[in-house]
């Protein structure tokens, strides 16, 4: 059969390799849901996902979908690319404080070139999902106005 679409340029950035304890997070991302592990004993969410609650060390954990809303806790406008990011500079790496409390790292998806004038600490953001390969989706964040 002919007429296959030309393959998209191969994604060159490092990809996460899920472990049993993080699989629900990456499965959630693929389904365009931001999932967080919650502790059934102390009632707090944590990030990154692990086999126990780092707040009280309980192993009674449950996954729940997060709102996807948060704010920029801190950020960097990165000019010297990590491997696989050569065609993306300058790009923003941000630490996002989620509404539910935990902080996670992500990239900001911007409509314009990032500058210190258009990216701010405390800026409200919301999750978007970037299907970087057929298997892997990375949660990223977009400024909300």
């Amino acid at each position: 059969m002919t007429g296959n679409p030309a393959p998209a340029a191969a994604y060159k950035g490092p990809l996460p390799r899920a472990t049993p304890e993080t699989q629900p997070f990456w499965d959630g991302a693929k389904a365009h849901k931001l999932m967080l592990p919650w502790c059934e004993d102390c009632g707090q969410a944590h990030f990154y996902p692990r086999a126990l609650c780092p707040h009280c060390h309980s192993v009674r954990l449950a996954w729940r979908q997060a709102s996807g809303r948060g704010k920029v806790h801190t950020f960097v406008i990165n000019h010297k690319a990590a491997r696989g990011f050569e065609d993306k500079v300058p790009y923003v790496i941000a630490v996002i404080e989620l509404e539910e409390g935990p902080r996670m790292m992500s990239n900001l998806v911007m409509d314009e070139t990032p500058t210190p004038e258009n990216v701010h600490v405390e800026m409200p953001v919301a999750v978007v999902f970037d299907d970087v390969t057929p298997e892997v989706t990375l949660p990223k964040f977009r400024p909300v106005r």
Partner: protein
Amino acid sequence: MLKDWRAAITGAADTAVGELPGSSCMGLHAEAALLALADAGLRPGQIDGVLCAYSLTEPHPMLASVFCEYLGIRPSYSAAIQAGGATGCVMAMQAQALVEAGLCRHVLVVAADNRLTGMTRDRAVAALADFGHPQFERPYGVTIPALYALVAQAYMHEYGATREHLAAMAVAARTHALRHPKAQMRRPIAIADVLASRPIAEPLCLLDCCLISDGGAALVVSARDAARDAPKPPAALLGSGQKNTHEHIIAAPSLTAFGCRESAAQAFGRAGVRPADIDVAEVYDSFTITLLVELESIGFFEKGEAGPAALAGALDLGGRLPCNTHGGLLSYAHSGAAGGLFHLVEAVRQLRGEAEARQVRGAELAFVHGDGGILSAHCSLVLGRG
């Protein structure tokens, strides 16, 4: 009067630093070790303990064992320690514990790497990306400068530090390096040069970042009775402390308050001194922000004060706290775990009065600090002229 001490640095040395074509990681280890042994007036066979760090150019899971074999010694105790940039101070603290416990009389502490000439650019970049969390940081394109820039941005937001304040750290380091005949960077720089240098990870620019160097350094840490025969005045290990709060930046409890406060408080407490008593400080400076945060967290300056003070010359000779008098990682050299040992070697030279054009007059108490990861692992030491 000095607290009653039980362990001291009796030998301290470093190799040439910078670009050393033809050098090897183990060759630099051996050279630094023999220089430190000669400085302590010891033969290799008199060493009964060895502490090594890690290497990016010749990595091995048993580096201390590799080193002892290479040098041709068979000490009764050896181990390798990996705590990133804190390793130099952690090794000194561990050596102190070994001699104070009576397990060893003379512990050789040694680290070296030929990161400048011994690695391809690709390998060096890949090795440095390993610091990010493999699933939750690296997919977002992190680099070590970017991770430190995240701290810089948070700190500037909370305490009003400016890029000029960060630049003042780089200029202070260069000013000191100009007085050190071995320093890698010998061209004067001004604040404007730092601000105008190429952006790497905004707000950090090229001159906010440490060097990449070949080089090695070593210490001999001796028990007090064994230090009696040392040819040079011992630098007493008066107090030490550690604190780890996280490894990955996403798990840091705070991006503006770090473990250096607690590690330093422990070291000062054990030494029975206060920050204001310190004559000279050698503080880890992988980036300008690293030094600024540490100077303010350790208690040498109030929050928001280190930058303006540095702009006014506080870190220079004759200033309130002469700091990184060899030029630090920013302007002297940075070759892996040896980078943190350069700070310790300089502290010993200052306490002995051997620092020539960069000597802090009458230096009796020195403070040395190392941090590893992204301000993750901290180790502080207070040294005194024995």
